[in-house]
């Protein structure tokens, strides 16, 4: 993948998390070894596709703790007041905002159209499988590693 595009993806995701969730992302420009990676207890997954001149999709894997944390910050409520439906909605909206914002930057003519995001509990999360993907982006957060995978042309 083009270095400028990688940098734009890192910057866009960081901006979305900081602006909307007051959560700082530390991009890991080099993928750590499997032994160095701590896998969280559970993850939420969001997927969003785009179509047009180029087509593809982004998959986001957020540790449960991170997903709950950004939902609490987003809604400005206490952690006890956040339910599963709100967490899934926030995870979905995260994919929508991140990729929508990214397309606005890399496709100013609007040739690519964003699909509707989906989210669910990621019951089949596999760090080994994701580490083998060429379009992997990793970010350190205070609540564990955020995994983002780009699949496309």
């Amino acid at each position, binding site marked *: 993948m083009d270095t400028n595009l990688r940098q734009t993806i890192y910057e866009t995701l960081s901006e979305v998390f900081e*602006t909307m969730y007051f959560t700082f992302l530390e991009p890991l420009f080099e993928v750590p070894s499997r032994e160095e990676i701590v896998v969280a207890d559970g993850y939420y997954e969001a997927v969003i596709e785009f179509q047009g001149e180029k087509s593809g999709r982004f998959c986001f894997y957020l540790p449960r703790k991170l997903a709950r944390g950004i939902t609490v910050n987003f*809604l*400005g409520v206490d952690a006890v007041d956040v339910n599963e439906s709100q967490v899934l909605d926030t995870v979905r909206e995260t994919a*929508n905002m991140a990729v929508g*914002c990214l397309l*606005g930057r890399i496709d100013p003519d609007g040739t690519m159209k*964003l699909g509707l995001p989906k989210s669910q509990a990621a019951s089949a999360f596999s760090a080994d499988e994701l580490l083998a993907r060429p379009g992997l982006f990793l970010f350190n957060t205070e609540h564990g590693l955020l995994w983002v995978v780009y699949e496309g042309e």
Partner: protein
Amino acid sequence: MAFNILVADDSETMRAVVKKTVEMSGVPIGEFHEAANGKEAIAVLENNWIDVILSDINMPEMGGMELLQTVVANDDFKRIPLIFITTESSETRMEEAKRLGVAGYIKKPFVPETIKAILYEVLAKAYEHRMADMPPQGNDGGMDF
């Protein structure tokens, strides 16, 4: 004196955040209505007096662009200013929205101050007589939440 506001977004949490932001902006709110897509928004418009619409673009069933087209084409609704709050930020899309008659455009991610500023601007333009009695926009202690 107060304004009736309609927020259309398929994300329930985003609607809640927009509602909170509008409440903290100082704009006097009468009724606050919500819709999960353009179709639901039209139903709200048919049954309620609405002063301003804040809408996403990328929604299921009926998106924001179609909603805007419906609003400007309807004699009963075309007086209502519509502001997009959206991730769709390509120049082409923004130009299209402008051509169709959108009153304002807020890109996600946004800071609360942006919603406040654009909402005031749009309301002032559309309802100058009602805005004259409102507190001035500016140093009001911030809107952090």
